[in-house]
């Protein structure tokens, strides 16, 4: 099994921009994407803030090349996946075995929940075509077909760690010499289903979220998609441009503590981070930046914080939660944050953890509060911890 997996391209669409340059600009300027909900029709408009992609479904249709009744989730996925594909230069090489490993938690739920408005009243009502993308796999297949990827398509759904697991799976398919190149990542559009679901769990913040703040109140949801193109060493050498970095470590570890909460000592996060480090051969002090899962819930930030203290004490790297910009994009979050991690290495930048006023008293470290450039970022750890105890960590390293 060959060891090296390189990152050849990245693509993203989120509440802070419709592509990599736009998102980068927002990150540099500390411009959050969290705002009053304006695109999703919901009774919670004006009460619960979220980070929506600033495009209507009609506008997304034009951008993605899908026709307007298509699920918003499909269109978001297409835009980001295509950007990653195009900027990787993979198209210049013939005869590659390519794959698409995508993650999502909602599938086409943005359309299904509209179907249900009519269906609940009368089971003969509701437009069946609204269910065309209900199944998660149909979202991935639609995008793969448009990109012309036939060798392998799979879809993963493990709550908030989904796209980290998609990236891991894609990397392993390359290491096992089953594929030469994989677009891996995830997508989730904002839907009433998830907005109401999280609301009923009482973990949404009615103000703009403050991850890792002593007085944090919960999370803000977001939407978007983030994909990276992973390639084998052979393909990396054949490409015209240098790969952005390598994926040197990853780990999928289950907390097995509770259906939704993380263990207080952070066993799950600790297991995922140590596993990723072990694979990469790095020591904790070799990590230059941690992209935190940092949702802003009382439980996650305590649990993740406790795990970081256990693992990194006394050498704490710079760290921040970019969910303060993009909101929590669920199935897309690890994909989006993988893109940010890669940019951190490529551009030598570290992002701020916005709106941090009072550091958590229980933790001996404080996330970054301002944007910095000209940093020597060699290794980045990206965390994603989800419901069901699904904890995953990725490590990207400079070549």
């Amino acid at each position, binding site marked *: 099994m060959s060891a090296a997996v390189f990152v050849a391209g990245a693509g993203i669409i989120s509440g802070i921009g419709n592509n990599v340059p736009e998102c980068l600009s927002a990150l540099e300027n500390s411009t959050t994407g969290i705002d009053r909900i304006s695109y999703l029709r919901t009774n919670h408009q004006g009460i619960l803030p979220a980070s929506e992609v600033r495009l209507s479904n009609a506008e997304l249709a034009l951008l993605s090349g899908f026709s307007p009744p298509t699920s918003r989730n499909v269109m978001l996925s297409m835009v980001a996946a295509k950007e990653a594909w195009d900027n990787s230069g993979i198209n210049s090489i013939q005869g590659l075995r390519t794959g698409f490993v995508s993650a999502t938690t909602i599938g086409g739920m943005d359309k299904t929940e509209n179907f249900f408005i009519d269906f609940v009243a009368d089971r003969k009502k509701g437009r069946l075509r609204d269910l065309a993308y209900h199944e998660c796999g149909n979202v991935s297949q639609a995008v793969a077909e448009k990109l012309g990827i036939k060798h392998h398509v799979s879809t993963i759904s493990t709550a908030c760690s989904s796209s980290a697991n998609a990236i891991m799976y894609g990397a392993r398919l390359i290491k096992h010499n089953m594929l030469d190149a994989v677009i891996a990542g995830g997508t989730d559009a904002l839907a009433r289903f998830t907005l109401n679901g999280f609301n*009923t*769990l*009482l973990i949404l913040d009615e103000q703009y979220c403050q991850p890792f703040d002593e007085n944090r109140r919960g999370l803000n949801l977001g939407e978007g998609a983030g994909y990276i193109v992973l390639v084998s060493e052979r393909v990396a050498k054949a490409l015209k441009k240098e790969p952005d970095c390598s994926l040197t470590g990853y780990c999928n570890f289950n907390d097995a503590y*509770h*259906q*939704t*909460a993380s263990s207080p000592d952070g066993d799950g996060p600790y297991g995922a981070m140590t596993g990723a480090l072990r694979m990469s051969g790095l020591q904790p002090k070799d990590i230059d930046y941690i992209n935190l899962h940092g949702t802003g819930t009382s439980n996650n930030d305590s649990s993740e914080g406790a795990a970081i203290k256990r693992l990194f004490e006394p050498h704490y790297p710079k760290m921040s939660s970019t969910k303060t910009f993009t909101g929590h994009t669920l199935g897309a979050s690890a994909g989006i944050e993988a893109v940010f991690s890669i940019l951190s290495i490529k551009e030598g930048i570290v992002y701020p953890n916005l709106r941090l006023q009072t550091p958590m008293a229980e933790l001996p470290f404080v996330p970054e509060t301002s944007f910095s450039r000209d940093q020597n970022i060699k290794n980045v750890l990206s965390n994603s911890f989800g419901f069901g105890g699904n904890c995953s960590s990725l490590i990207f390293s400079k070549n």
Partner: protein
Amino acid sequence: MDKLISELKEQIAAQLKMKNIKPEDIGDDEPLFGAGLGLDSLDVLELIVLLKQKYKLRVASAEDGQKVFRSVRTMAEYITANQVQTA
């Protein structure tokens, strides 16, 4: 209060899908969480929904919920106290 306690037991059993437990078997003062009935944090959230749906009362957080839902009696007392205030 007794009538409310009795109604609450039925509602709790239904909301939490307790098929194997008869409502009348739940003690008035039996701890609902931990060693008593063995409910957990997700059940707290379900009971918060119950309070809102049936009694139009809002419990702001899961932490507040832990206090209100200590036993069926504390729930009944909370409902009685807060419904009087809104009358």
